[in-house]
Each structure stands twice: as C-alpha cells, then as structure tokens.
C-alpha cells in the first residue's frame, strides 16, 4: 500500500509556486519539499527552472510528469521530508487518480478561466469535464475542497456542484 503520511498538502493551483503558496501554504503545511506534477512542465526545463528558483531557500522543488510521480508514490519513495504536491491542471490530477492516486484530501486553489470553464469559487473556474473528474475523486472517498488562503473557510465540492453544475448531481 502506498503511504501518504509525508504528503502534507495537495493543491491544484495553476500559478504553482507563487505568493499565496510561498507565504501561506508552505508555512501552514510545514512542507520542506515541493513536487509539481505536470506533463507539460516536465518537458520544459526553462519554465520548470522558474519555479525551482521561485521557492524559498531550503525548499527542494521537483517537477514530474504524472507517470513518474505515481512511480514514486507506489514505490513509497516519498519517505524523507514533508511534501507539498502542486498540480497546475485537474487533467494531470485525474491522470494520477487513474494510476491509483488515493490521498485523503485535495485542495483546489486557483484555476484560471477559459472558454469552456465557468467561475465557481473566487479564482477557480471549472469546465464540466473537470467538475466530473473531481466528483469521480470524491466518489472514491477523496475529500475535495476549495480554499485560496488559510484564513478562509474551505468550501466543499458538493456545495460548488449544487450551485454551478446541478445537472451532475
């Protein structure tokens, strides 16, 4: 069985390592290692490096594609340190889920708008496909909640679905 004890926070945040994460969530989660799981970034050294540089001193940053991340999970390789896992896209999160990713909870922080997405919570927009993906995770007992910064009250996925995707209920 994969062990998730060292994973302190899993967050979907399209801006990845940025102000809210560096000043709030890193401290709150007490993580000293960050893994960015993103197919595109894992093939782009330049952009990956931007995020590696953006992390505070003493915080290791690793950029992995979903397959390599799941290898680490399944081989219990995340056993030294405290981890913050960041996804840029729900699509990449779903890929990991399909490969057996089953943490207890996932935080949705920032997802930008696009033609097929609508605003559902502060700076989170979701497409119907993404809403369905999140529901699928929730159906496997993964708690999905929306929260931008620690001081705010988290909002449960069910509330978001009821309000914005009532057709999926």
């Amino acid at each position: 069985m994969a062990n998730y004890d060292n994973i302190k926070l899993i967050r979907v945040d399209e801006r990845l390592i940025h102000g809210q994460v560096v000043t709030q969530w890193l401290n709150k989660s007490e993580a000293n290692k960050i893994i960015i799981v993103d197919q595109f970034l894992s093939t782009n050294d330049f952009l990956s490096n931007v995020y590696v540089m953006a992390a505070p001193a003493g915080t290791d940053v690793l950029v992995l594609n979903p397959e390599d991340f799941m290898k680490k999970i399944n081989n219990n390789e995340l056993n030294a340190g405290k981890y913050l896992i960041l996804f840029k896209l729900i699509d990449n999160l779903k890929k990991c889920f399909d490969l057996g990713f089953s943490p207890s909870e996932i935080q949705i922080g920032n997802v930008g708008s696009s033609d097929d997405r609508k605003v559902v919570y502060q700076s989170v927009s979701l497409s119907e496909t993404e809403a369905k993906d999140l529901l699928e995770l929730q159906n496997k007992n993964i708690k999905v909640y929306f929260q931008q910064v620690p001081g705010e009250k988290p909002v449960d996925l069910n509330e978001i679905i009821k309000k914005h995707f009532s057709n999926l209920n």
Partner: protein
Amino acid sequence: MTYIILASHGDLAGGMLNSVQLLAGPQKDISILMLKPGNSLEVFAKKLSSKIQEKLQDYDHVLVLTDLFGGSPSNSAIIAMKNLSFQCITGINLPMTLEAVLDRNQNIKFDEYIQKIKNAGRNGVIDLNKKLALN
C-alpha cells in the same frame, strides 16, 4: 535614461506610485502592473514582457521592482529575462522606490544606481524602538 516598472500583487504598485508622487512630485517614465485575483502567470508574464520590450526601444535601461520574491510578478520577471535584458529587484518598499525614482537622472553608473536602490531598501527597515533606546 531608465524606465521603471512597478509590479505587484494587487494594488501595492499603484499605491506605491501614489506615495512616491506625494513625496517627489509627478513622475514620468514609470508605470505600474498589478496582478489581480484570477490572473494567470502566463498572461501577466506576457504583459510584463511586452511592456519591457516596448520601453527598451526608447530607454537605456528598464528597471522592474516587484513586491515579493517567489510571487507571480517576480516569477514573470524571471520568464521575461529569457529574452530581454533588464534589471529586476524584489522586495519593493517606499525608500527603495524613492531612491529609484530620484537617482535615475543622476550621472552615476547603472551598477552603482542599482546598488544604491538595494541599500535604500535595506536601510529603510529600522527598529524604531531599538533606535530610540540607543539615543
């Protein structure tokens, strides 16, 4: 001549420019770029890059001052540095910004100018209680 861009999370850059002008009078050759909730890094980085590119055509130097190392405005500057040659300093405060605005027309080398700005930013942080206790 140096062109200055202030880039921040939310309204800080606008407020900073406002405060600078209160102390130093109306300023030209300076602009602000403010990241709003929901803005993506990509869009902000593009805005910053095109502003820098435009100004590099008319100015000797472009100086970008950002609010927070590790934040999206500063990450956008890292992205812009791939293709453009400009200076960026993070951790903006009023003493730093004033120095940047007031000293850019002085006849000093650009390196020296940058050093003065960094010093002003650092030296502007003073523990007033300790200072009073010493005097």
